[in-house]
């Protein structure tokens, strides 16, 4: 069932995102190309195109964020809710399908952002021969950090990268689930549901951050560097603390969302 839900979720969103990404790619190439013009100090067209590109980039990020919310709110709690909530599926399956799709589109948008920047850079390179030379430089630059990192901090770059990615993932999950929880809690009110959802979102965010501050194990950057001899362990602990917090929060948000959707639904 979950696979089927995912299929229709992607079917519903693929076209729109495809158009967005295509537009972004096109704009990034144009911006890059326009920067190739005689490198005069006042290349207005180039500057404008660059600005347009940045705006487009921001718009795509915003669009991704809004779509994540809209897919949940409109499809499960709006008119289409009559269809989705009468399908013979469990509510956690509905929530999971939305969550997975949202994560996929978030990741895709980030990748697209990086890709578009790469496209812009490639398009902006003055001549082709220089391009290959630049590419070699780029490669050197990219491979430098891991080595440098290990030298200065003394622990594995790849472990660090893994922790960062894992944190991004669980943070993404818990953030999205918080959005869903806010929607479901707001749905419990009879009127002003959207306003209630927004207020709930900020309320929970505030409460959680306040709670985390008093939570044990929270070390400031200074405290970390004070433990100079075992800095690797300290940083690792911080990472895993954050990951754990996100896992716990994410699970709570998910459970509350699924429960409210299954037992406290009131579609009008």
């Amino acid at each position, binding site marked *: 069932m979950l696979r089927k839900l995912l299929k229709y979720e992607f079917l519903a969103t693929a076209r729109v995102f495809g158009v967005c990404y295509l537009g972004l790619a096109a704009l990034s190439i144009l911006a890059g190309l326009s920067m190739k013009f005689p490198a005069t100090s006042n290349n207005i067209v180039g500057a404008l195109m660059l600005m347009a590109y940045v705006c487009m980039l921001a718009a795509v990020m915003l669009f991704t964020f809004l779509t994540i919310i809209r897919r949940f709110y409109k499809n499960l709690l709006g008119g289409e809710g009559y*269809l989705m909530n*009468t399908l013979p599926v469990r509510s956690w399956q509905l929530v999971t399908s939305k969550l997975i799709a949202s994560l996929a589109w978030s990741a895709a948008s980030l990748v697209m952002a990086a890709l578009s920047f790469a496209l812009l850079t490639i398009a902006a390179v003055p001549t082709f021969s220089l391009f290959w030379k630049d590419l070699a430089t780029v490669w050197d630059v990219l491979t430098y950090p891991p080595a440098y990192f290990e030298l200065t901090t003394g622990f594995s770059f790849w472990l660090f990268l893994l922790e960062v990615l894992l944190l991004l993932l669980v943070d993404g999950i818990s953030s999205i689930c918080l959005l869903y929880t806010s929607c479901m809690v707001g749905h419990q009110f009879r009127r002003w549901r959207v306003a209630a959802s927004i207020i709930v979102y900020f309320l929970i965010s505030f409460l959680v951050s306040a709670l985390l501050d008093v939570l044990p194990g929270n070390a400031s950057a200074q405290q970390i560097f004070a433990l100079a001899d075992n800095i690797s362990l300290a940083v690792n602990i911080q990472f895993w603390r954050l990951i754990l917090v996100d896992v716990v929060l994410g699970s709570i948000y998910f459970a509350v969302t699924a429960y409210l959707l299954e037992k406290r639904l009131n579609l009008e």
Partner: protein
Amino acid sequence: MTEELLCCRGLGKQFGHKVALAGVDLSLGRGRIIGLLGPNGSGKTTLIKLANGLLTPTRGEILINGEVPGPATKAVVSYLPDASYLPSWMRVRDLVNMFDDFYADFSADRAVEMLSTLEISGAERLKHLSKGTKEKVQLVLAMSRQAQLYLLDEPIGGVDPAARDYILRTILQNYSAEATVLISTHLISDIEPVLDEAIFIQNGHILLHRPVDDIRETEGKSVDEYFREVFKC
């Protein structure tokens, strides 16, 4: 398979101060075509939504096959809402595939056959169809299932008389002794010959639940006429 298909015990639903359903007790058997008859705002849609798990009871309970509304009951209940509820970007054939995907008792062949009889193209997107055609699509999807309980909320309200006949004929052709069809409507004279039983509902209260022939015999008038008498302003 229990004898009683749908059961309400002290079922109540309140929206803030407004009481939509007040302590309803109801029992629906199998193999019947039942009319849920009442004026607008009497609680018909609320009752149907509760049976589908789209609303949570304020008190009491509603059971289908002895179970609380959930995936198991949704698999055997076919719902036709009053409003437009399907994603408008989807094509008709996408919807047929979707219902086929999710419902084991859905017959895609039957749906395609009905759509072609009604001259509705599978390639059209819902948003390009007229309101009446959209309603027909919704009806075809609901009736192409071999469900145990059909909950049709105002199925004949917005369609032309020819389509109305087609709808009623489809309901009759679909009839099975294991299944029950609950039709909620205020257009009684059209569906009266088709009904086994009639339920009168007003202001969230069930006024009566009797076999149609019983009403005709005892009151000496059609259910439609009796309804007007009972509900006259």
